[in-house]
């Protein structure tokens, strides 16, 4: 296990080099000029040139690339062209809020998705099961933007139960609507996948044995089938959680949630290169970490899955 983890960490280096290089080159290729965001309207060419000089954009491309790699290697992600603030400080500020939203959404998705999955597997021939499956199909297809606005309309404007937007210092009532919105698609996928996983394994020998022992359906599902059905769910959680952690631009925008997604989009629109490059690298590391955690958890959930040795 230790060797496996070490190996995965070593694999990080070439992946991050690749991500860093590609991000750097994309920044160079796409049209747009970061200095234009600094000068606003009515600027003169001389000021533009001096600003470009100051933030190092006048250096030849290979030198800029090397400087960037060296800085990254020293874990220095640079400073925002626009605000002058160290990128790492901004990530430190934005990431915990994104983490809070992502973790809550994932918790909701898994908890509610599994419950729906179990119920619809048990009730598959009755109206409740069919209703839940149709609902989850709707859930997978529903656009986040529309759902977010619908929830705001219902719970904030009509029922006055929850605030429409904001972070509220991380308080629960501000978290609910964005978390539910963000969780919706994953919840529906978890429900559908866990239902079919439950159905697949419920006819296997060990399930039949459990039923033959006289256990009721609840215990059969809870004790014997549950862990076996988790594998595909973990895969979904891994992929979705990885992308939630890099910020969910739509959800964050609708609910005015000050997360990483909005931070990065704003940087892209202003061509704030250090922020874009730093954040993309950070997201790449997160994604790899989440995938690693998923791989490890396969083995914990199902001991039959052994991680290949070195």
């Amino acid at each position: 296990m230790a060797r496996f983890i070490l190996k995965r960490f070593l694999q990080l280096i070439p992946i991050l080099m690749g991500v860093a290089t590609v991000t750097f080159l994309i920044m160079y290729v796409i049209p747009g000029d970061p200095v234009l965001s600094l000068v606003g309207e009515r600027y003169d060419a001389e000021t533009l040139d001096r600003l470009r000089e100051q933030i190092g954009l006048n250096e030849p491309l290979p030198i800029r690339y090397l400087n960037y790699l060296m800085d990254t290697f020293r874990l220095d992600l640079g400073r925002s062209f626009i605000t002058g603030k160290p990128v790492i400080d901004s990530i430190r500020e934005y990431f915990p809020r994104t983490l809070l939203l992502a973790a809550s959404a994932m918790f909701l998705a898994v908890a509610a998705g599994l419950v729906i999955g179990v119920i619809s597997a048990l009730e598959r021939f009755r109206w409740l099961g069919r209703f839940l499956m149709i609902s989850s199909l709707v859930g997978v297809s529903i656009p986040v933007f529309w759902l977010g606005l619908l929830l705001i309309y219902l719970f904030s404007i009509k029922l006055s139960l929850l605030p429409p937007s904001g972070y509220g210092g991380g308080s629960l009532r501000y978290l609910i609507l964005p978390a539910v919105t963000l969780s919706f698609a994953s919840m529906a996928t978890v429900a559908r996948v866990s239902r079919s996983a439950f159905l697949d394994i419920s006819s296997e020998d060990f399930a039949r044995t459990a039923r033959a022992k006289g256990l009721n359906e609840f215990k059969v599902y809870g004790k014997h089938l549950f862990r076996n059905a988790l594998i595909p769910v973990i895969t979904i959680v891994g992929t979705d959680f990885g992308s939630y952690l890099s910020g969910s631009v739509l959800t964050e925008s609708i609910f005015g949630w000050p997360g990483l997604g909005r931070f990065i989009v704003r940087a892209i629109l202003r061509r704030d290169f250090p922020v874009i490059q730093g954040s993309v690298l950070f997201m790449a590391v997160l994604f790899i970490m989440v995938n690693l955690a998923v791989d490890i958890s396969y083995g914990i959930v199902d001991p039959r899955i052994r991680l290949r040795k070195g």
Partner: protein
Amino acid sequence: MKYKNISKLTFIFLLAPLFLYCSQEAPPGTLRRAFQTEPTTLDPASAVDYSSGVVTSLVHSNLVRVDPAGRIRPDLAIWWEVSGGGKRYTFHLGRHSFSNGREVTSEDVVYSFRRLLSPSTLSPRWWVLGDLEGAASYHGGGIWSGRGAEAVDDTTLILRLEEPVAHFLSLLSMPAAGVICPEADESQAPYGSNPCGSGPWILDEWVEGDFISFRSNPRFEEVDIPLDKLIYRFIPETMTRIAEFEVGNLDILEIPYAELERWKSAGIKLERKEELRTVYIGLNLSREPFSDIRVRRALNLAVDVEAIIARILFGAGRKARGVIPPTLKNTRTGEDLYGYNPRKADSLLEAAGLSDGFRMEIWQRESPSGGRILESVQAFLAEVGVEVELVTRDWSAFKQAVNHGTPDAFYLDWFADYPDPENFIAPLFHSENTGGKGNRTGYSNRRVDSLISAASKCLDDSLRMEMLEEAELIIYRDAPWIFLWFPVRYEAVSPRVKGYRMPLIFNGQRYLDVSL
């Protein structure tokens, strides 16, 4: 069955937190507003965007300021004299204190002005004070002569100009000319997030991505500020801002065009103001066939601007018959040279040898309303045989392309920096300002250039206005733009807000007379 109980419990668990929130009472003494985009700084030298300009003006005082109606009013200076043929301004400062408690002296004004002009500050707004004697040379790396801004004593300040500048006081009201406390600038903390001014508001808290709040400055001696706190939340989505206003979490809200009918019919009190802004489609004059005046006039005649204002803007605009907003011309609107007339447009195109029409691109930046507006322009132009392709780019790429003269035409607007007609003529049409300085069509007309220069030096207001209006008429006839409209802004104001007036210019409202 047991699992049914479990699912019920889960359901209750998930819904329980909903009931933790009940509609909250609005905090007393706190005015709540929202920005679509977050400010980037509170430093007068680097505030170039709308929201940064607004907040910078709350925290800092200038020598003079603009009131909500757009008139120049005393700020730090309680009175001033102009002498030397408009080249010498003597300002007499009142008693004002910085938020750190120290009294503002004329030396502080000199420090702030010198800082803005210094080449090491790299301020893109140094031109605001660029007319001071020796300013350009100092900015270019020369020595500071001290002639441009001289502190005679603690409360007397002399500003000397290279040439008379008729709109100089307007320039002094801009956020860039804000007076900062030198101690704060010299400290380690970046000034942009740790400002120290003598304005009516003090930065209280700035949570990146979430909100910025200000508390009233107890040392602000001009008036007793009725509000305790001012909060601007950062909410990018229009619909979300509307929802926040509807549930009572915001006190003032700009209403988008598409929502106007609904709000008007709901009987909510709306404030209305013609903005100091003009919306246009700039034509690339260095390129065929736009170098032909007949083609440019034909394009103007072919677009039914009134119809677009009525159907897409729901009346929230006034057709532009020139470039200076009527508010700055005592509401004079002038003659409409380009009433919708596709037949006349056809004949002009025929005379220009384009009877078969032509193809052109109109570039736009991503915006919620731009698409619909340009699609109707596209349809109007198609009627006279002009096939328009719409190209959308994000702001950075769009601006770069337009400044380099890449597109045939571009859809853009111009916000006033200060409430003076000069601001709509000189940057946009003086041949010296081609490109990023504002004249993006490459328009060049010697008569217009000389009128602008003469108006700038003319201290007789009515004569100056005549010159600027003459320049405007020449430009209007030359049609370097497809002239569209001057937008009208609507704001909904919560009934709990008293004394609020929508400002004519972005930094014209400092909430001194607003109470709850």
